[in-house]
């Protein structure tokens, strides 16, 4: 199946002026300005198939948003090639823009002073959506996100989570085939995050849409993405299944058990992560997991022993800790 998103050696470099602190340096800067090249995205390549939901991960400043902006046509790449649905995004052809959306968690496109219904009508006009189809889609999304009681209130009177749900409805009314979601759950409470995740999953299923998602909340990634692409300092660190990422980069596992004895030197088994009454959780090196669990069972009267992979947050942290040249 041909990929819907294909990028090859995509790069975006910025020339950023820099100087030392102080008056002398400021004066010198008037005569000769010094620039530094910042490689926000540094020759990354990957492809995404139709209907895939891909997590795009990296720490702040890794180049995720810059990549999304290039893929949605907001930024011209410095070099490399980009193809989205067969279009070159930087040309921003209207046929291309009608088939994509970019949702940024900290950006609003709905009118602040008016009920969302009024802004939705503008979206209809922008994308030339036939009235019947518009009403059907709008009502479908309103129902899915449980917004019926809110669509007649001015946006300014809604909570952050409610506003975000409205923004998502507005961004998807034209039923785009490609969704670029940049931190869509930023700042939302757990319930609201879950609601938005469920909606994105449902949209993906109903419309076979392709989703490229950035999020600092690993729950988003775990719930939605089978595949993840990880970048750091603009370079690609990993591209593959989430489970493979965990397998490859997780150096630890967590071992939980119940024990009544209190006077034990736990350092010989692993690092104590938490204790809750008689319940303990230890972090142990992955390769020693079998040996340590055997020792725990033999040495101590432990019950309800469980072994789990390290939390995805810890895995991602260890990915970023790895030097780029040490990985593929």
């Amino acid at each position, binding site marked *: 199946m041909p990929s819907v998103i294909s990028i090859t050696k995509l790069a975006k470099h*910025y020339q950023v002026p820099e100087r030392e602190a102080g008056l002398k340096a400021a004066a010198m800067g008037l005569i000769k300005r010094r620039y530094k090249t910042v490689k926000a995205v540094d020759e990354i390549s990957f492809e995404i198939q139709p209907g895939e939901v891909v997590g795009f991960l990296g720490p702040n400043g890794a180049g995720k948003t810059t990549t999304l*902006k290039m893929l*949605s*046509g*907001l*930024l*011209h790449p410095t070099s490399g090639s980009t193809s989205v649905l067969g279009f070159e995004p930087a040309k*921003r052809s*209207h*046929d291309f*823009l*009608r088939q*994509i*959306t*970019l949702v*940024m968690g*900290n*950006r*609003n*496109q709905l*009118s602040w*002073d*008016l009920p969302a219904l*009024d*802004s939705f*009508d*503008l979206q*209809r*006009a*922008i*994308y*030339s959506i036939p009235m019947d189809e518009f009403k059907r889609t709008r009502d479908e999304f309103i129902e899915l996100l449980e917004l019926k009681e809110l669509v007649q209130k*001015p946006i300014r009177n809604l909570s952050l989570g409610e506003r975000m749900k409205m923004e998502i409805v507005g961004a998807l009314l034209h039923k785009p085939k490609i969704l670029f979601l940049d931190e869509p759950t930023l700042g939302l409470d757990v319930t609201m995050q879950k609601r938005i995740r469920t909606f994105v999953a449902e949209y993906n299923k109903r419309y076979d849409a392709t989703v490229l998602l950035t999020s600092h909340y690993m729950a988003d990634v775990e719930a939605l993405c089978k595949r993840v692409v990880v970048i750091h300092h603009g370079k690609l660190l990993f591209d593959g299944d989430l489970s493979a990422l965990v397998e490859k980069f997780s150096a630890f596992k967590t071992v939980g058990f119940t024990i009544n004895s209190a006077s034990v030197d736990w350092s010989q088994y692993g690092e104590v992560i938490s204790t809750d009454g008689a319940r303990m959780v230890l972090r142990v090196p992955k390769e020693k997991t079998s040996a340590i669990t055997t020792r725990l069972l033999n040495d101590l009267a432990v019950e309800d022993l469980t072994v789990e992979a390290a939390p995805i947050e810890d895995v991602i942290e260890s990915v970023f800790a790895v030097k780029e040249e040490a990985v593929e």
Partner: protein
Amino acid sequence: MKRYFDYYRATMKLSVLEQLQYPVANYFYMIGMIAEPVIYMVVWSAVARQQGGMVGGYTPGAFAAYYIVWTLVRNMNIVFTPYGWEWRIREGQLSMSLLRPIHPLHGDVAYFAGWKVVVILLWLPLAFILSLIFKPELDPTLLQGVVFFFAIWMAYLIRTMILSLLGMVTFWTTRVSALFELYFAAELILSGRLVPLSLMPDWVQKLAWFFPFRWAFGFPIEALVGNLSTSDLFTGLGMQLAWILFGVISVSLIWKIAIRRFSAVGG
């Protein structure tokens, strides 16, 4: 074409709805705005009386007519400013506009056009009160009225295009306030805003012919309250059209270059 018509209708409607959210604020804004022409009107009327009832062909009643129409034209002149361009680039709002399959300038034109519908409605009672106080001499012909109607909307388009061109300078550098101030100073003198151009020295009047300012401000007022011949009226409309075409072509060309520089830093 139908698509654009629908988009303009929807955007203008949204703009009207937004303005109706704050009718009192809008009214105070307009009342604040008439302070400037009222000062001009009082000063020039006093000068006219001291000069024996007329200065440069303007009686106090003619000045009243000029500056009352001025208030409407001034409101029609309000467009998305270069400061607005700075703001929307810095705050990331331009990014949201660029994601839409329609040029952002259409949004600006449509939004402010909708805003003007509300402004005109709010202006009518103000103009009525000003007329009661200052007793303007205004007796336009039908042709003048028709030309005025088109002229104020074309003035709006001229200023939108010219200020968009200025605004796009922010793609190259973000500190362009000084340039804007220079523009506004030239506009004040060469547009007919400070004083009717016919009262200015001959060389200023000739110079004003070659800049957009007069066609975006003074001409619509002169068309309604002045003694322009039919030929002058149509020449004026032609000049307005020429400036709009110049603006559209220039904006399109510069936009293509400018947008490549867009760094979407604000979001």
